[in-house]
């Protein structure tokens, strides 16, 4: 049969268990809105029974510690979805800035191209009019400027993205250092059988931030989490982190090097860095290449048409546009080669009043360029591509945001703090504490009764 002493001991343990549980609830409530916080539950265990004679009696409760309620699979899915979302957002941000250059309303290449052909057609009604000739020159200049502006928009976006690459790499290095620093502390806790708790939450949050920057794969090593880039290059092993470096390549672009100095730029995918590199090295050069081809072939076609006729002075038509010998850079450098209105080769027979060659200049509008499309259709294709790329990035961003919201809800249902639940727990533990305290005071009374037993008999 149990003694009052052992009962008191059970009651004290109950008090400890209740106050320890209150501590967990208190901490949960305190961190209800802390990003990355995982709710903790107290681990209560009944103590081994005490055998007394032919029966065994329970010996109370023990608070073994706290356990964070995690779902590693959901955590990993959230990291992956974050990579996809940040990548899409990075592409979307750049494309949204590029998009207005190719708008269909004002001063874009399409509008200016139409204006040039309209001015040529207008000149055909009065080929000796100096006003009409000047209008053709002005329209040509406006078109060249539209090409220059579009090209500059694309290249300045590229330069801006170089800065973004450097900033991302700096952040990645800071994060990997912090993650590596947490590894030994977490390892120490887990080796003693404890939960990583707050430190693990911090590390998960840092890995999530890293996922927003680039694609990382996370594996559980002997010394904590090991991180590597998408192509397997280690970023964190145990307490050690490996910094990435940046350098300006011969192409003028910022390249990313691993700790051995190997260029890993093209293998970086996902996250803001991956999306930025994708836009800078694939999307923009693709658009720029088409723009250059269009500018070069259009300029060459107009020059060829001009060469078929005679200017107002009866001389053979000279180039109307100056274009570089190579296609690359054509859109950036295309400009008018003539500034004298009389040099427009309207005449097909050398007489000043002939307009015969204007038909050849006009025909450029409806003739396929060597690339296979008419200038107008080539530009329309470019517009479609810019729109389509932006639309796809937007769709991916929306889809990943929705998916991420869903995953976060799922994770929250596992690891999140519910104030209602904690309020109920608060009451439960409060009542448990009150009951244990009542046991203590009851035992105290019993002790008093026991102590005064002899005295009472004597009286």
């Amino acid at each position, binding site marked *: 049969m149990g003694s009052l002493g052992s009962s008191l001991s059970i009651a004290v343990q109950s008090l400890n268990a209740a106050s320890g549980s209150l501590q967990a609830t208190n901490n949960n409530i305190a961190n209800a809105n802390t990003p990355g916080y995982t709710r903790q539950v107290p681990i209560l265990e009944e103590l081994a029974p005490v055998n007394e004679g032919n029966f065994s009696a329970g010996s109370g409760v023990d608070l073994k510690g706290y356990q964070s309620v995690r779902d590693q699979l959901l955590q990993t899915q959230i990291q992956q979805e974050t990579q996809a979302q940040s990548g899409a957002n990075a592409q979307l941000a750049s494309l949204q800035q590029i998009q207005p250059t190719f708008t269909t309303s004002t001063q874009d290449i399409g509008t200016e191209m139409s204006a040039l052909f309209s001015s040529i057609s207008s000149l055909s009604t009065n080929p000796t009019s100096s006003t009409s000739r000047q209008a053709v020159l002005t329209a040509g200049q406006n078109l060249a400027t539209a090409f220059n502006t579009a090209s500059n928009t694309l290249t300045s976006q590229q330069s801006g993205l170089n800065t973004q690459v450097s900033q991302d790499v700096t952040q990645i290095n800071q994060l990997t250092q912090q993650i590596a620093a947490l590894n030994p502390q977490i390892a120490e806790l887990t080796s003693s059988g404890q939960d990583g708790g707050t430190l693990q939450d911090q590390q998960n949050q840092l890995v999530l931030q890293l996922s927003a920057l680039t694609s990382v794969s996370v594996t559980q090593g002997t010394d904590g989490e090991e991180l590597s880039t998408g192509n397997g290059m280690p970023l964190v092993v145990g307490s050690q982190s490996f910094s990435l470096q940046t350098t300006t390549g011969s192409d003028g672009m910022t390249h990313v090097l691993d700790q051995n100095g190997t260029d890993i730029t093209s293998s970086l995918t996902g996250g803001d860095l991956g999306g930025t590199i994708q836009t800078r090295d694939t999307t923009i050069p693709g658009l720029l290449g088409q723009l250059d081809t269009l500018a070069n072939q259009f300029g060459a076609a107009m020059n060829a048409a001009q060469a078929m006729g005679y200017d107002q002075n009866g001389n053979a038509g000279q180039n109307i546009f100056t274009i570089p010998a190579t296609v690359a850079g054509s859109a950036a450098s295309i400009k008018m080669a003539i500034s004298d209105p009389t040099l427009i080769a309207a005449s097909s027979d050398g007489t000043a*009043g002939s307009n015969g060659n204007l038909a050849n200049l006009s025909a450029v509008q409806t003739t396929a360029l060597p690339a296979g499309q008419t200038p107008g259709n080539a530009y329309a294709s470019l517009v479609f*591509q810019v729109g389509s790329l*932006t639309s796809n990035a937007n769709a991916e961003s929306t889809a990943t945001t929705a998916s991420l919201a869903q995953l976060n809800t799922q994770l929250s249902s596992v690891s999140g703090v519910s104030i209602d639940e904690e309020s109920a727990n608060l009451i439960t533990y409060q009542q448990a504490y009150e009951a244990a305290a009542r046991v203590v005071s009851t035992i105290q009374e019993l002790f008093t009764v026991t102590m005064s037993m002899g005295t009472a008999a004597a009286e």
Partner: protein
Amino acid sequence: MRVANLLPDIQYQMQQSQQALATATQQLATGLRVNQLSDDPAASANMVRSLAYSANVDQYTSNVSSVLPQMQTADSAISSIVTSLNSAITLGTEGANGTESSANRIEIANQVQSILSSVIAQANSSFQGVYVFGGSDSTTPPFVPASTTYTSSQGSIASPLAATTALTAGSVTTISDAATGETMTYQAAAGDTIATLQSAIASAVSAGTLSAGTSATISANGQLSIGTNSATAGIVVSSNDAVLGTMTADSGTEVANAYAYVGSSGVNTVQVGDSMNVATNLPGNQLLTSGPNVIGSLTSLITALQTGSAAQIGAATTAVFSGSTYVGQQRVPLDNTISQLNSQESYLGQEKITLTTQQTALVGINMADAATNLSQAQLDNSTVLAAAAKIMPQTLLQYLQ
């Protein structure tokens, strides 16, 4: 499922509904369904093509407006010329009457002379500075008085031109003959000399392009002189060769009632539709000299009335009659073109409306739809907000107080 916190879900829903609200507001405010390329990339690309075609239609319309008055001027001029020629025929028939006295015939000749002046004035009609019968060379009057002799400004006694003097390669010298109604155009090739020009003129005479007797000689002053060697045959000479300098008519050699065509025979065409080009001018030589030489026939009638017999007057009148018929025929294609332009103008107007409708369908939004979308988005948004307001303050703690 355990629900720990409703807030993130509510926030996401609020963002979604506010995004929808922003889109609906923008669509209603701009009247456009496609406000940026990514809203509908295919429609944006089609819009680029449609706008380019639209610009072409605008330009075709503008071209029609530009050339139509010019052609109407030409049409009205031809009509006047036919009327004048008919008057000349009446006068010629009257003059051919054997009973007319020579004084009367001189008087009739004077009347025909004023008719000729009127025909020349009509043939030199211009619209806003463009000589409608000048061919593609439309900045100067196409019919000019002819003279018997032209002399170069270059060459002097001290430094005379010679048959061996080299001409500038590529330079052009033209001789327009009033009597034949034709023009000889000579372009100097590399190595050509004045002698080459001389033989070219001789060949043109043989071919009938130039009147018999026309030749180029070096004058006593060392200058090049091109003349008809006849007091009644007139020519107009021009050259852009710096070796010869400007060719000027010798003073007092102008031939009465003789006019040569110095315009070009080029025809300009203007595009007024995707596959419709119209000739915007009728070269004066085609109208009045290179077919039946109408100007020449009037000149002949005047000469016949002044000095000829009744039979000669009759023959000259017949020539004017043929000319009048021919000129009348030339008016038919011109009238057809004017009529084509008028119908093209209506077609383009209609096409413009069709294009605008297409463009609205491509990127625009029906206002009723936009307004409905906005109401729907507003309703969705207020529903989400109302739900949030209802749910968020509710906690267990509230009930425990």
